[in-house]
């Protein structure tokens, strides 16, 4: 039946209908001028194409070892350690925290770190709050110690700027879905950052409203995850906080705040990092390689939840300045 292989493959909606037997065989055969026997072959082929093959346990263990070696750095070694080596392609990592704790800043760091690895990597930043600044990202690359090695290796700021894309205006949920669905057709990004998901979905959720919005979030993440697994994309999502009852808190450092979007959301991400504010009066100075004095404010990053064998509760403290992240001992 090799000539059936060469017929044009049916478009996705039709394929599903064939699979589930929802097609009127007579009409289908007339429209596509195939005989009923050929239709049966097509149906078998559709089933073949869509079925899932089993894996054996040993293969899975080997795969896991191979995966670990492909982790991507987020740009700061101490946080990479909390993540077990870095961000895992195919996984969804969440960064949550109050405002100004450094979530967007960490995302910029990840964007630059991925595009600095080689000349082909591209990254997409989906900005749902219009709070991104292209100039700041470029300045980070040009002045930060984190990327000094990349600069020395000859990585050029214009090449980086061409490979980082920012998608603005994604304020509503259908905009987000459109962008994600379009990704199937665009060039392959290695990293997708969504900043922030709470501003898109929080207005839909509420105390007295039914559970329909929760299913929207689940569907969105499921689509995103399928994409991530299929093309090996790393996903980083920022989330804000909501009020937590005193006995309910999970973070040691933030007494009454927990990640927003409720309990449904906790099942949808693989790892959650929680950023908290340190004591703002404790500011330290760091002198970077270019000789600039950078004033840093203290922040704490802890692993709040993880489904992937990370140690929950581990944390690191660091100082966050204009272009640098630095630990306490590096300050003067």
């Amino acid at each position: 039946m090799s000539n059936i292989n060469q017929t044009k493959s049916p478009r996705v909606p039709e394929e599903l209908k064939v699979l589930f037997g929802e097609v009127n065989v007579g009409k289908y055969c007339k429209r596509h001028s195939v005989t009923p026997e050929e239709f049966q072959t097509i149906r078998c082929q559709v089933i073949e194409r869509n079925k899932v093959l089993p894996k054996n346990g040993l293969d899975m263990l080997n795969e896991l070892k191979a995966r670990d070696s492909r982790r991507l750095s987020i740009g700061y070694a101490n946080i990479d350690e909390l993540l077990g080596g870095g961000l895992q392609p195919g996984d969804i990592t969440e960064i949550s925290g109050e405002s100004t704790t450094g979530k967007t800043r960490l995302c910029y760091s990840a964007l630059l770190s991925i595009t600095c690895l080689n000349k082909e990597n591209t990254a997409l930043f989906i900005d749902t709050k219009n709070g991104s600044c292209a100039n700041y990202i470029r300045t980070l690359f040009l002045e930060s110690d984190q990327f000094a090695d990349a600069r020395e290796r000859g990585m050029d700021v214009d090449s980086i700027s061409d490979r980082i894309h920012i998608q603005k205006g994604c304020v509503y949920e259908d905009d987000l879905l459109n962008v994600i669905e379009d990704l199937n057709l665009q060039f392959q990004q290695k990293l997708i950052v969504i900043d922030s998901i709470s501003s898109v979905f929080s207005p839909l959720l509420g105390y007295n409203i039914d559970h329909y919005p929760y299913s929207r979030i689940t569907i969105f993440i499921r689509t995103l995850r399928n994409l991530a697994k299929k093309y090996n994309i790393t996903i980083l999502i920022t989330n804000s906080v909501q009020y937590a009852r005193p006995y309910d808190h999970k973070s040691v450092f933030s007494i009454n705040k927990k990640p927003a979007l409720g309990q449904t959301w906790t099942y949808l991400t693989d790892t959650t990092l929680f950023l908290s504010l340190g004591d703002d009066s404790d500011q330290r100075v760091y002198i970077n390689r270019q000789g600039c004095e950078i004033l840093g404010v203290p922040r704490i990053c802890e692993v709040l939840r993880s489904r992937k064998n990370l140690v929950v509760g581990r944390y690191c403290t660091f100082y966050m300045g204009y272009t640098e992240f630095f630990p306490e001992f590096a300050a003067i």
Partner: protein
Amino acid sequence: MRDARSILLVKLNIKPGQIKKLHDAGYKFLEDLKEASPLSLSKGVSVQEALSIIRQIKNDKLPSASLTSIIKRETYAIPTFCNGIDKLLGGKGVTLGKIVEFCGIPGIGKTQMGIQLSINVQIPRNLFGPEGEAVYIDTEGSFIIQRVAEIANGTIARLNETVEGSPFNLETILSRIYYFRIHDYIQLNALIKNMDEFLNEHPMVKLIVIDSIAFHFRTELDLSVRTRVLQMIAQKLEDIAESFELAVVLMNQMTTKFGGNSGPDNTTLTPALGDVLSEACSDRVLLFRRDEERFAHLFKSATKPELQITSVQFQIIKDGIRDCPLPSDPGQ
């Protein structure tokens, strides 16, 4: 959700040189290009480029833009006439497309700032201003028209100092401010939801001031209702700011926070309405008084985080907001 008419060509992924050619040929908005055929476009740009432009438009979605193209876009800013504050906000003032919050104790000058910005947004292009109109949403009743006239006259006098013979007079200034008086949060919500229609009828509006956003939310509203309504308003404002390319300025009040980092008995003055507003705004400026002088301090910034540690002094005189004449040392 977004009106195609109002989407400017500069938002598409087209090289700046081509955008200029399209502007010269008369195409300014997405809507104009919808009718164009590749042949008519290719008279100015190459056929390949014309095809790619048309393909992007037919998609009806805005594609992501690389950092390089974002930086090359011209952005206008609304000056505050105080160079210090302009620098805090990103260089030249309140940038179009962003949401900025000003907070402070009563009497510090928030309404004055709102009035000054509503007038400054009208500065003509040939004087390097945005040449737009303003929408002023008043929830407290503090918009006094005599004061507006005073500041308008002050602005005219100052601009006449710089350039001779500007066609900028009191009648035109006042006629380009659209004033809405709101009496409760339901009216506010309704107004913002229907702002699209108003903005389509008045495409020259480049600024929306809400003075103050906190007033109606500090009554007996349930915390979760308040959070949800604020999030909806914030989401809509982000959408409007991005699609219509205008600046949104929110005035916020102050509240007392018990506890916090310094211990359970300490109280600090913080901006009202909590984290919700903080997440939505890209820049937040605190106006405060020290030793009888007025200062402005930036405590969240998307573009200039290095300025978050300095304060600038400003003064409010009969003619409006101005820099301080004497040199002042930056404090913390």
